[in-house]
């Protein structure tokens, strides 16, 4: 009886993969220029960043929480990096490391306050979103850093693989594999998952759950900083509004990717590859909608619908899985 139970994680990711293939074929046939070198390159640059944003949210969803401050945090870190590179004049590598440290630090604040107050991370990150973004605007006086080192900005416009792909995508894929390894094969990664899945049981098994949740928020901050650095490199400048007011533009892709990928909102489950596929799917559909000339203003509407459909499908699948279980 047990053997016949399909592994839903697998079917979910496989289904996503099929959807991706379907949309690629669909848009190649029905739009002009989808498979053009220019479009695929542009697509790869966007996908790269959406994957990172999705992963950054995923590691907090793991705790059963969420991180509204993701965009604000990422942009703040990137602006700090821009300041280091342009105004202070620190070499690129140390500047990037310090940027990541900043992201991690801001994530630590989120995690620390959430764990110590026992308040839901929603309200904590709502507050820190406002604080980070406000501080950042105050320090930068809402001015962009546009004279970043060329090596840094060139990376974002570099084209590889016969000029079809941006190297940014390779960076993201590197992180995907890194996180996959981390969650699957390391002591800490497993502890994070256990803490998210059942905090009480994990605590009694000798895991400091509070510590683990703080780590998740730090990781989220780090990944958001990576995403923001990649975005900076892509646009060629660090701009305060690059993720929208309060960094709110990141929120939808941040939730779409993990939710489509099959991450449980109640925590305790990560799907690194699913999140990647989710991000790819979202970017693909967005891009396709542009090409169909649906009107850029309707794109958000469709993304909202997709999120709704994704969660509804997830619910339906759960429902039918239970039903077939009962029947067998």
């Amino acid at each position: 009886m047990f053997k016949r139970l399909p592994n839903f994680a697998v079917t979910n990711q496989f289904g996503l993969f099929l959807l991706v293939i379907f949309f690629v074929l669909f848009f190649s046939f029905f739009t002009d220029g989808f498979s053009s070198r220019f479009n695929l390159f542009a697509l790869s640059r966007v996908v790269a960043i959406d994957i990172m944003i999705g992963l950054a949210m995923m590691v907090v969803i793991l705790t059963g929480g969420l991180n509204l401050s993701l965009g604000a945090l990422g942009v703040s870190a990137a602006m700090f990096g821009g300041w280091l590179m342009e105004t202070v004049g620190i070499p690129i590598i140390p500047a990037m490391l310090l940027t990541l440290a900043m992201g991690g630090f801001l994530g630590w604040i989120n995690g620390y306050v959430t764990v110590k107050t026992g308040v839901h991370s929603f309200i904590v990150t709502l507050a820190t979103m406002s604080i980070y973004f406000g501080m950042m605007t105050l320090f930068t006086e809402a001015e962009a850093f546009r004279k970043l080192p060329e090596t840094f900005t060139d990376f974002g416009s570099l084209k590889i693989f016969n000029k079809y792909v941006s190297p940014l995508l390779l960076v993201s894929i590197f992180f995907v594999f890194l996180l996959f390894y981390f969650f699957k094969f390391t002591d800490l990664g497993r502890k994070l998952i256990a803490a998210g899945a059942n905090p009480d049981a994990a605590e009694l098994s000798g895991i400091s759950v509070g510590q683990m949740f703080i780590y998740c928020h730090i990781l989220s901050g780090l990944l958001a900083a990576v995403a923001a650095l990649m975005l900076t490199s892509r646009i060629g400048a660090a701009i305060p509004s690059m993720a929208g007011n309060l960094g709110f533009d990141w929120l939808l892709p941040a939730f779409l990717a993990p939710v489509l990928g099959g991450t449980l909102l109640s925590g305790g489950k990560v799907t690194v590859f699913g999140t990647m596929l989710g991000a790819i799917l979202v970017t693909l559909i967005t891009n396709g909608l542009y090409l169909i000339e649906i009107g850029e203003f309707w794109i958000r509407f469709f993304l909202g619908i997709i999120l709704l459909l994704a969660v509804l499908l997830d619910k339906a699948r759960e429902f039918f899985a239970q039903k077939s279980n009962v029947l067998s």
Partner: protein
Amino acid sequence: MNNLCLEIKEASKKFPGVLALHNADFKLKKGSIHALLGENGAGKSTLIKIITGLYKQDSGKLLINNVETSLNSPTEAQNRGISVVHQERNLIRRFSVGENLLLNDLPKNKFGLINYKLVFERSKEWLELMDLNIDPRTVVSDLTVAKMQLCEIAKALSIKSKILLLDEPTSSLSPQETEHLFTVLQKIVREEDVSIVFVSHKLEEVFELCDQVTVLRDGKNACTSESINKLTRQNLVKLMIGREEQIIKSEKKVVSDQKTVLRLEKINTELGHHDINLTLGKGEIIGLYGLVGSGRTELAKCLLGLEKIVSGQIKINGNEVRLDSPKTALDRFKIGYISEDRKKEGLILMHNVLENAGITIWSKIKSFLSFLSDKAIHAKVDPFIRELEVKTPSYSQLISNLSGGNQQKISVAKWLAAGTDILIIDEPTVGIDIKTKSYIHELIIGLAKKGTSIVLISSDMPEMISLADRVIVMKNFKIEGNEPNSHNYADMSSKIMAYIHD
């Protein structure tokens, strides 16, 4: 003409893999207090859920006042006069007692606004009926559990319920509170024309309160609505477990020159433990006995550093230590805790066997860059899972798909793998079939023989007397007695009860 207010005829209910109820009968006479007994897994809770409209029977009939009825929801059951009294679960904790009693239909003025004066006046009447001397303006969360329960009964009466279902109502009450509850129940049966279904594990209470009894075993009736006068305690036990009550005669262990491993000196805790003194020798099993709410589990949590210790000393192997988290307890002092609530605190249901069994040893076997391989974990936990004879198709099976007994084995296995020196075992055999139960008993004795010191928390007197070397009786967060186990049931149980009830 019979006078049954509720009757169940040949009800069956099937779940995937189990036949939870098989042609079960149940007859509740008007104005009686009817005990419903059975071991865990005997089908009691399924029957209760059918009566309260949560489940629908696959076959068989349900009759209310001799009319065949089908109940599709708890609300519908309530409308037909059937109410369940849970422990503190049916009340809105932030609302006042009065508002809770009348929430279904609050009295309103001519503008449709709630008239609180009337709410408190009316609810006061119900409270008086229950001999409850509390202001209806009191917020529910300020009440003791016993009073909450009485409020729930008052609430059930206020919505004109004629059948009350009480599921383990005394499990966290003091003897005085239990006495009060019983007086009230007998009064409402007499005066308010109410019938009661009483579910309890405590046979003494059943004999004190009930006039009829139904026993379920393996989903079938072991007896149907017998008069209680015809039965003895031994009869009932036999009906419930299908054989005589028996105690493993574990030979008295020779505990000579045993080294004291753990010593508590004058421990006071934030939760209210007062002046706790305790010693635990190497390879010794001490039993903590007491009613639910006497502070046993809470004491365990204090030892793990989950609750604050205000004053006093904990000494491990003679050295004073500070325990601030389960992590410290496990990593530095090798103290483990097997929780009574395995689904909530013991296991991660959505994870598989290997992950659950290995959780305590991950940090120990990680290698370079904290690399952890399933193979290494497998090698470590496999002997224990085998030793415990866990029935699972594979180690990648999700824990939620295993039976209760096998789940409990896994939550024991992870602590065996951890190799603890001191193991706190909290209610190890609740909800577990007889076979696994005796298996776990042997295991505990075996562990102690190998030198593990064990603190056993149990409300199961026979279990306590079978296993413990010493029984420590707790009451109201204090230690009342410390009795070396004579392994003589009658002698020990009367001694223990004397500590609790004096």
